[in-house]
């Protein structure tokens, strides 16, 4: 890539690269967690995420109604004691669907991010460490993938492979990998010229050993920041794909799909069917960003 190119540091997708530049220097995991526990933004974010994780795991046992049960005599019912968030077009309890609906997104988003981070880290290490032709060829392929909006690439491949939880994890993971690779590559370029890498060369260490054992631990902080920020975008992507009809198939409760199924009746005044799932997604997104902000500021200190 050309030195100083703008798009090397600023990506198609907003602010991660900028944040990564701010994170520097290894720290012991113990100090990091101690500092995190003193950060109010991190704690508030973590509390909200823990709440949704509890809903995702145990939701079925404490939801007031069966989220799949249709009451065809009580469709589009407004908020009441029996249905705190009202019912949808099929008479299903909106509160129960919001509680149980946390499951899909909280399974897919972290797993996809994990896959994307693993792939992207490996790719970035190879590009940064070998440089030259390898970097140029892989870099061009990465640029090609990044030349299309993430959502369009994901829509194409999810439609081709058929919507399901594993498909979504794999597709989102693959789409995120180039973005993460770019960050890791930039960090590796700095490390590559340091003395410890030269020393490992002189000792006769093999390239995989140098990349994964010597360099990787030193580029972990930016990868960690990238991971937390990327989870936010994974939630964004999963929710959007569900909304576009490419999420796990119905009738499983799903925030994005429930909004898509009921947004045509907003103008009829049935606002609760879409507003509560929308607020659920919004709260999760804000919470993940609070956590990312906490992690970033602790690692950057």
């Amino acid at each position: 890539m050309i030195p100083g190119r703008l798009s090397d540091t600023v990506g198609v997708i907003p602010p991660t690269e900028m944040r990564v530049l701010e994170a520097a220097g290894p720290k012991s995991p113990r100090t990091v967690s101690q500092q995190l526990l003193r950060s109010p933004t991190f704690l508030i974010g973590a509390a909200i995420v823990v709440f949704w994780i509890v809903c995702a795991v145990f939701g079925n046992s404490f939801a007031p109604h069966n989220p799949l049960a249709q009451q065809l005599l009580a469709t589009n019912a407004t908020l009441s004691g029996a249905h705190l968030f009202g019912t949808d077009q099929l008479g299903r309890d909106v509160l129960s669907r919001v509680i149980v609906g946390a499951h899909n997104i909280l399974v897919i988003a972290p797993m996809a991010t994990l896959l994307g981070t693993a792939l992207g880290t490996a790719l970035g290490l190879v590009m940064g460490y070998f440089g030259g032709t390898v970097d140029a060829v892989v870099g061009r392929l990465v640029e090609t993938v990044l030349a299309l909006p993430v959502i369009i690439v994901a829509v194409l491949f999810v439609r081709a492979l058929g919507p399901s939880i594993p498909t979504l994890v794999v597709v989102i993971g693959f789409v995120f990998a180039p973005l993460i690779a770019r960050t890791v590559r930039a960090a590796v370029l700095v490390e590559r010229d340091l003395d410890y890498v030269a020393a490992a060369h002189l000792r006769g260490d093999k390239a995989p050993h140098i990349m994964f054992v010597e360099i990787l631990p030193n580029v972990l902080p930016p990868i960690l920041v990238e991971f937390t920020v990327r989870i936010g975008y994974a939630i964004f992507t999963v929710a959007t794909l569900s909304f576009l009809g490419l999420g796990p198939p119905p009738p499983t409760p799903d925030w994005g799909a429930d909004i898509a199924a009921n947004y045509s009746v907003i103008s009829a005044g049935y606002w609760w069917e879409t507003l509560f799932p929308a607020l659920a997604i919004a709260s999760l997104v804000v919470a993940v960003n609070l956590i990312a902000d906490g992690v970033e500021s602790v690692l950057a200190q």
Partner: protein
Amino acid sequence: MAAYLLKRVGLSIVTLFLLSIVVFYAGQVLPGDPGRFILGPLAAHSAVLTLDRQLGVERPLVDQYWTWISGFVHGNMGTSYEYQAPVEPYITSAAVQSLKLASVAFVIVVPLSILGGVVAALKAGGPIDRIISIGGLSGSTLPEFVSGIILLEIFAVAFHVLPATATSPMGSSVVTQLDHLILPAIPLVLVLFGYVSRMARAGTIEALASDYARTAALKGLRRSVVIRRHVLRNALLPTITVIATQMGYLIGGLVVVETLFNYQGIGSLVLGAVNSKDFPMLEAGVLLIGVVYMLATLLADISYSLLNPRIRLGGGE
């Protein structure tokens, strides 16, 4: 400089070529048979095979790719399977619609996010800075349909101040069209705001700490004059070029917003083509998106390098 430009344009052409291959083969992986799709489930098997042969979908993929890309270069984007008509008019009209919506979003977001970024930078570290930064970041990861739904319920349903659909009646005045486009533009604005304001903030902080800003302050200029005359000018140029790199995101956002607000733009066109397996429409739409994005990035890079003497004069890494 000439060498840099040449290299940069050359790389774009390589990427564009790779992109056209990716787009073409991505279209092929969608399950289903075009002949069967056009003729419907009741048509005879032999008829489907004949149509497939006429469409040329039985030929080797390399052959098909060559026909497609050479047609594309000559301005022939192919014939839509779904509408049985040339693709161009659909693509053109959808692109114009999307351009209108995107322009409204840009006109709102650019001044707003620059203002936000500069204010955050001037109050760096304070509560206003934190609110703008965390709020901006949350806005930028809030899916457009989520903010869209919330805005729709507030402004269109509860208070009836803005129309709920993006499409205005045929032959509407510019004002009516704008009125319909404001609500759909806001979700896009929210996503872009976090990013652009962050860049504006970083640029302003850098300019504030620079030697020329300090010299101006030491000369005895008032702080407001220093900021207006020295800091802003240097902080904003890179920010403006950064905005061009957001085109790629913006088009992705259009898919969602156009679906939510029932608007016939390029995003909903591509989504519709994916769902109906209309290859020619899909490939033309996606390739157009790729080209627009690539041109925007190219312009951004070139203007950035013109503004930045270290690159213009051929400095190293």
